[in-house]
């Protein structure tokens, strides 16, 4: 189960503005989905190691050598507001 206040808190964390109707619907839907997910609670998982990745690779390194990359112009080409050679954004506010 998830409460309306938790939905609002999580939406804030996720930088999502939800309408009142969306909050209402999401509260019900997430509760149903979490109810299904909580079936995992039936399993005995004591002492089981977590798996984050199935490929046994770690620290894949390459030589630290400069190589060509996108130009500044190319990188900014799809920006909604390129400004002063960078990505323009409004003030974070007070």
């Amino acid at each position, binding site marked *: 189960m998830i409460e309306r206040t938790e939905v609002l808190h999580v939406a804030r964390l996720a930088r999502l503005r939800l309408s009142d109707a969306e909050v209402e619907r999401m509260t019900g839907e*997430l509760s149903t989905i979490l109810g299904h997910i909580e079936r*995992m609670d039936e399993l005995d998982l004591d002492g089981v190691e977590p798996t984050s990745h199935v*490929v046994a690779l770690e620290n894949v390194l390459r030589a630290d050598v400069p190589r060509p990359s996108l130009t500044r112009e190319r990188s900014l080409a799809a*920006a909604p507001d390129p400004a002063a050679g960078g*990505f323009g954004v409004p003030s974070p506010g007070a």
Partner: protein
Amino acid sequence: MSELLDLSAVQAVAAIGAGDVSAPELFDLYRARAADDELGAFLWVAEDAPPRADPQAPLAGVPLAVKDLFCVEDVPTTSGSRILEDYRPPYTATAVERLSTAGAPMLGKTNMDEFAMGSSNENSAFGPVRNPWALDRVPGGSSGGSAAAVAAGLAPWAIGTDTGGSIRQPAALCGLVGLKPTYGAVSRYGMIAFASSLDQCGPLTRDVTDAALLFRHMVGQDPCDSTSLEYPEPVASPSAERLDGLRFGVPPELTGEGLEAGVRAVFEQTLARIEELGGAVDEVSMPNTASGLSAYYVLAPAEASANLARFDGVRYGLRAGNGDLLSLYEETRAVGFGDEVKRRIMLGTYALSSGYYDAYYGRAQRVRTRIVEDFRAAFDAFDFVITPTSPTVAFKLGERTADPLAMYLSDFLAVPMSLAGIPAISIPGGLADGLPVGIQVAGPAFSENRLLDASFALERAIAFDGTAARA
């Protein structure tokens, strides 16, 4: 014209190599069909045939449909989302680059569930896709456009991506072959990320031989994807006629309740065929796989919530809002994302949030370990694990859109293999009420050659006829 359409991709490669068919002629045939698409399968179609095609190249100029989450330089790439509606990437995905180098030029970009989240293609911001076997039904998802395009003969072959069934389930629902490779076999560079520990791209094709050829030219380590691996052996063209000595395990946990009667009938018929071909079929208990869906719907949304944080209206894509920076983020994401994407971001953020992390994310990672162990034990005694691909045939458009959990259950049989990172293929097993039923065969990591070979033998015995969908 229709003779060209009847050629499988491998047959077309041979015909072009022999000089019987010209690559531009084939491209133009498919270009015209794709441009006339009435299924909603394509979001973008190439204007012209590529300037030069080498008839001796391994793929000989046979055109390829590409799911719209593969970045292609200067070509619209939306991932099915409003938030990327006008986006044209500055670089090309490795898989697309490799196939193009091998001689498969891009025919077009195919429709998909937004950010690959969905099982029906109804979550696309650019409209649904219709199943060529029955126009009032879904093609499956999330690679629904790629599947519908190949099934309808709008493209000879296609690539899609599979995070928890997104190649296999649409292949099943459209009567195609779909291969989800071993995790790491194909570079993910340039694929717009959904859940990075699960995402893999692979072929959707008319037959197993086509899938093997396309796969052969996709694999390999890529410096741009540090999780990619060198494929340990050459990918061969499948040729097996028999299944002698091969053991197929049927997990009762995945093949019990919930299967439609028609799906069950085709599945049982397929098991009988395996035995006729000399294979052995037996039950194998995989007790944790039934919890796969629960773990998946924690892990995939958790990874997605992090991956989709980049869509914030700053560097590319849609920007909305005219207040401060926070309202720019919130407004852009409110306007740019569809319902399912918001739902998954919420679910993932919740599962990762302070106080819930251990109960959801931590627990799901431990279930994942258990599922990996289930498969490891199964492959000690069996060569393959076999199930239906989807519990149902293609369902009607609109039938499940109001019930997200019912939609998620479409992936019940496909998700465990994704969590284990192992290869799994869906091949058409037959029809139920005139609609295709897919059979899923899974093997250990990097067993694609054996998987393709066994599927080839089975495919010959089944002799599925997909021509009705191309009419």
